[in-house]
């Protein structure tokens, strides 16, 4: 039965995220699964290769917590605010965080890596990187001569994560997953991955999925686990459910700048709570972010 995929976050992480794994928690600003990141920290995973276009606050927290051996990325900042300071300390050799290996691309490069991984190709060609220092910084960016035109094209290697964690608005018990709003590279990352955990705001009956199949981004056949975790993306957001907690992103600048302050944050909001429900109970003010209603017109699927 497919419904045995539905499980608590604790069980999903215990079963499907292992020490040494390449872990992708995707979502471009939208639908970043902080709940999964926090559970990985609580379970003390080590030596992870963390990959994402934008490491964002969640990987800054996981780096600070000592989960990461390596970071694969294309833009490591706090969007609209400033720096990820745990990341910076690790790279700039200031000692609060252990040294971190990095492998760096641009967004297009990372997207292309997931596309290759999803298509089970060894690499992906792109017209890019000429006149930049990125290939010198990262020797895995190479070139290939097009067999049809002779043009030199850049290539990036496939990225096939051990596990990809995708947050979404809704799924059925089998893992057919629907999302709307900004969808980033979640589809490619999920198809590229050996295992997929989907984390949703709402579990819905299969007929809800079937009523609007064009909105399904991830099909059940690639899903290992379904976790129901309302507000699981906070301080990121879920379109139609809750807004981004921009105040938290601004506040992170000062939290992450000070290693002791960052440690206190992790003690209070990650190690100090057993699960997402307890995290939310500590900060009832997040309900101010609940989304307003803007419904779409709907379409006729009849024939």
């Amino acid at each position, binding site marked *: 039965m497919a419904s045995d995929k539905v499980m608590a976050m604790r069980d999903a992480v215990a079963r499907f995220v292992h020490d040494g794994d390449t872990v992708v928690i995707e979502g*471009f*600003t*939208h639908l970043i699964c902080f709940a999964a990141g926090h559970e990985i920290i609580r379970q003390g995973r080590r030596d992870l290769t963390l990959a994402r*276009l*934008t490491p964002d606050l969640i990987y800054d927290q996981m780096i600070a917590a000592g989960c990461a051996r390596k970071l694969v*990325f*294309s*833009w*490591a*900042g706090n*969007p*609209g605010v400033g*720096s990820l300071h745990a*990341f*910076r300390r690790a*790279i*700039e*050799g200031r000692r609060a965080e252990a040294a971190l290996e990095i492998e*760096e*691309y*641009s*967004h*297009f490069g990372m*997207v*292309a890596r*997931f*596309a290759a991984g999803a298509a089970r190709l060894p690499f992906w060609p*792109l*017209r*890019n*990187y*000429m*006149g*930049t*220092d*990125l290939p*010198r*910084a990262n020797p895995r960016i190479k070139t290939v001569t097009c067999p049809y035109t002779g*043009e*030199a094209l850049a290539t990036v290697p496939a990225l096939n994560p051990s596990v990809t964690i995708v947050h979404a608005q809704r799924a059925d018990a089998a893992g057919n997953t629907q999302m*709307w*709003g*900004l*969808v*980033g*590279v*979640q*589809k*490619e990352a999920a198809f590229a991955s050996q295992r997929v955990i989907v984390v949703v705001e709402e579990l819905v009956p299969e007929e809800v999925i079937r009523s609007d199949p064009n909105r399904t981004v991830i099909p059940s056949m690639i899903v290992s686990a379904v976790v129901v975790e309302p507000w699981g993306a906070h301080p990121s*957001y879920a*379109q139609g459910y809750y*807004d*981004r907690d*921009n105040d938290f*992103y601004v506040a992170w600048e000062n939290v992450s700048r000070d290693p002791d302050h960052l440690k206190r944050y992790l003690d209070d909001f990650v190690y100090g709570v057993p699960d997402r429900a307890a995290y939310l109970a500590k900060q009832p003010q997040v309900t101010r972010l609940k*989304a307003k209603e*803007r419904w779409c017109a709907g379409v006729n699927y009849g024939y």
Partner: protein
Amino acid sequence: MAAVAARELRDGEVVFVGIGLPNLACNLARGTHAPRLALIYESGAVGAVPERLPVSIGDPALVTGSLMVCGMADVFQLFLQNGRIEVGFLGGAQVDRYGNINTTVIGPYDRPTVRLPGSGGAAEIAVHARRTLIVAQLNPRAFPERVNFVTSPGHRYAGRTRRELGMPGAGPVKVITDKAVLEGDEVSGEMVLAGLYPGVTVDEVQAGVGWPLARRERLEAVAPPTATELRVLRNVLDPKGLFLKKQSDGKTE
């Protein structure tokens, strides 16, 4: 700066928007002379009409009411690499003599003094957009003769031109600063002085640039923001002063 940048955008153009000042400039243009400007964000929002000033490039307000939302593979392959983007906006910690931009590291790559965020979508925007506009505050640290790291290519790399390197776009046509406007010279590829803000001298601009700055024969007098531009910026786009607060002397506008 936002007003000067906004004037570079023509009605009906397709522009790839970054957050912060480029976002202000694009929405100012849309609210004044270019109502049909098509805003595309790398997050996947196409034809966005944000009802609030987006704090991040993935703000939910970019989705609500937009013409299309697509995945990022489509943004980079079907829009950017396809050649559909007419204008790309770029900023950076360092901009050099040839308009190369560094947003990666200050100091050596393996042991940086300051680790910056990296490329994001900037490298490919610099390669593919038919023309790019750079926005940056003028000071010698931000305008060295050579950047520490070329994240986003300008007009010359290791002595080779964009055409020789096979880049489709025209590269940085202008650098809009808080004191002056520089332009990419068609022959030398250097960024040269093209316009001065009111009350700014050539010497002041030279003092903010780390190479001997060539200049156009006739320098444009950059007009200060109009009353309409200021009204849209302050009352409509950024009423809380999120982006404009730091420049109370009016230079941002």
